[in-house]
């Protein structure tokens, strides 16, 4: 518990060096140390997927990874995806297709979807449903999330914006 470790993590393209306790979760590191509060905790035991971020090219749950495990690594969070002024095609698709309500699961859902699309390209509805089955949403009944991810996958493959609904 005691004995802080010095780590260096690149988050959304910016390199951060911090002294952290070995037990500090990556999610708490992002939220408390870096003020990146877009990554949300929902269960803190790896089931709900709300805290999903991309670490070294793979989606991980920020509640199951310690900050020290990300030492020397690259992290992408929702803040690194797009901005209010310029939404990423995936964010745009969620906006077009009403793929969010309260918005709490949304950052994790987006990062999981990004990982799916990057690794599989175009996606069928069944593949999306299976692919996001580790991300819980209580508001949407998933239908519009699935539609949004399929649309985003198609748009990102063809380089087109994620079309009107």
């Amino acid at each position, binding site marked *: 518990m005691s004995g802080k470790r010095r780590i260096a993590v690149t988050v959304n393209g910016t390199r951060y060096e911090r002294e952290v306790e070995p037990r500090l979760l990556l999610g708490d590191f992002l939220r408390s140390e870096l003020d990146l509060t877009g990554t949300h905790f929902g269960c*803190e035991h790896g089931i709900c997927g709300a805290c999903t971020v991309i670490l070294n090219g793979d989606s991980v749950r920020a509640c199951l990874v310690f900050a020290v495990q990300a030492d020397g690594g690259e992290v992408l969070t*929702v*803040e690194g995806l797009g901005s209010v002024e310029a939404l990423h095609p995936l964010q745009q698709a969620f906006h077009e297709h*009403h793929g969010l309500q*309260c918005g709490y699961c949304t950052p994790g859902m987006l990062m999981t979807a990004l990982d799916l699309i990057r690794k599989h390209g175009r996606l069928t509805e069944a593949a999306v449903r299976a692919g996001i089955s580790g991300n819980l949403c*209580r508001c949407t009944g*998933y239908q519009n999330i699935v539609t949004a991810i399929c649309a985003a996958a198609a748009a990102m493959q063809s380089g087109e914006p994620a079309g009107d*609904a």
Partner: protein
Amino acid sequence: MREELRPKLVGARVKRVEDPRLLTGQGSFADDYRPAGMVHVALLRSAYPHARLLRIDTAAARSMAGVVAVFTGDELAEAARPMVATSKMKDYRATAMPMLARGKVRYVGEPVAAVVAASRYIAEDAARRINVDYAPLPAASDPLRAAEASAPLLHEEVRSNIVLSREFARGDAAAAMAAAPLRVGARFRFRRKAVLALENRCYLGDYHRGRRELTLYSATQVPGIVRDALSELMAMPEHLIRVVAADVGGGFGGKASVYPEELLVAVLARRLGRPVKYASDRLEDLLSTSQAFDEIVDAELGVANDGTIAALTAEVVGDVGAYSIYPWTAALEPVQVVSFLPGPYRMPNYRGRVRGVATPKAPLGPYRGVGRPVAAFVMERLIDMAARRLGIDPLAMRRQNFVAAEEFPYRTGSGIIWDRAGFAECLTAVRVALDYDALRRWQKEARAAGRWIGIGFASYAELTGIGSKIPAAPGMPVNTGTETATLRIDPSGSVTAIFGVASHGQGLETTLAQVVADELGVRLEDVRIVQGDTAGRAYTTGTYASRSAVLAGGAGKLAAAALREKVLRAAAHLLEAHVDDLVAEGSRVAIRGTDRSLSFREIARSVYLQFGRMPPELQEELEATKLYDPQFGTTSSATHAAVVEIDPETFDVRVLRYVVAEDCGRVINPMIVDGQVHGGVAQGIGAALLEELVYDGEGQLLSGSLMDYLVPSAAEIPPMEVIHIEAESPTTLGGFRGMGEGGTIGAPAAIANAVTDALAPLGIEVTELPVTPERLYRLVEAARRKE
């Protein structure tokens, strides 16, 4: 263009204004605030369901580095009054809920001591070093056992665990039942479930010692109710208290009550003079957030040979948990089961009795649908049981017994009034969407091939947008029937619309802007909706009970109309025109039939900046405040249809198809209504098949993680078809009806009927939810043994 021909925002699929911030991680959830000097609270919670507190030793915790303070219930006894949910209901016994337990604990998870420390990590370390000597007391976890006179008492001062009872009656149910040619009935049970919003409860208290002001950032649906409660419990005037619920990660009723932890951070912030945050984890959420359902219903339906309903009787026992939830009371959920049991049907004879029993569990509270999911489950099962016995089609039996168009307004067996609503239209729409006859033929073929396919329906009606003549909870002395809107135009011409509601996913910043913009004659982007904040509101409650579109929408319309009058008066002076010749549209005021117009910005600048040049009667701010009270409320209704298949080896139930036809009156934004229905149905499917809080006989929670408490994922939820029957409400402004809860009301009943239908060849009746694979297996095994 004539006013009525203008393109309207109300009714359009307008994309949500709240999306961009939420999509980019820029939301403001309670846990996202981290003011300078903030400290964290961790709670030591009871490990016992019922025990006397002999001694709490906090010395070791206090001595740890980074610990600011440790408090027990006794130490904070003078800091706030205990919460007591009162009711004018006869046969309701009020009990007090402490902020931190004093004397004894009454459920596993009840807060016992609080640690304040520099970080949540340190606070949790310290909480583990508090030693509590408990003297365990006997406890009756089973509500039927707890209702017995010999059961150990949870609250000695009320001398019974039966803390409430109520009866509704019409006609002579006993005689009509005795005379009915067909009687069907059963003991139904809907197990305890969690609300489970994805954001756990979180509260941040911030106290300014110089100004003696308290600000509470809260993951709440009801900032106004919380403000009133804090004022009363902490003896502070309300003008020194502000409650902010900026972005809230789902509520579904679980954040519609006032919680001990909410009061605690406010008390600690005042005592310590610095920001104090409590963020629940998921185990704490499952242990301590208000819980849902958990009723046992012995019900019987008497029917004539032609399928006409003659009588309904029901005895309900509700397990209300250890404390009466504030301010709704323990009566809210179980009493609504009996008040809504007769459903959308003509019911000449009815008797429904309910008892609420205190047990050592977290308090029962409001959950999406409140009582009606259980009522619909029981009533819709009874209808199907009768239809099957009589050889009548289940849709035909429903249709035949619906309150008919010419009978509205109709007083139900429990006294609720249904105004003109689209009961039959919804049912017909579902029938058509399903291509019902073809679907039944397909089912027959599939059955012949050995597949277990079932088709189930549920029809229901609910009261939404409730006004001041009806308390939202039985006998509750809090007015939930009004909503106020304040609209103001500033010198830049932009519009601020302030409401007391508190969106937690419903998209009210979009739908209320649509209503206001249409009525005021401005562009959507010129309207900013302020909500989820008590600042600037004299009286407000929040968002719950499917009220916000009806009440806030109505208040918004009234205030916008009043403000438009002011703008037109000013414009008439500036344009030297008659008010009747002016039209406000697209943030401009024009003289009809001419090209002469002024923008709202030009008008506002003239009013504010050249105030002295305005005639005295026009020297007024461009601001209007209006209150709206729909008096009684309105009726929302729907018919749901589910097609399911049961795997004969694993007893897994797959929902193959789901259709909803719903009547929420005039639709403000069809995209948002669809989303609300999808989400409600998904929760209802979870309730029907997966979600169960399992307590053992002693009151220990056995399903305290998301590995044990199963929430449906995208893989379990089917695509849904939603049809809108827009029968405009005759009783509300704008014709809106509430629609946030309906999905969850209909789905459990439809699934239960579909599963029963799938197993009809085995003669199985589903009477208990959730109908998990294990329960299905036992039902099937029992039926096979009988054969």
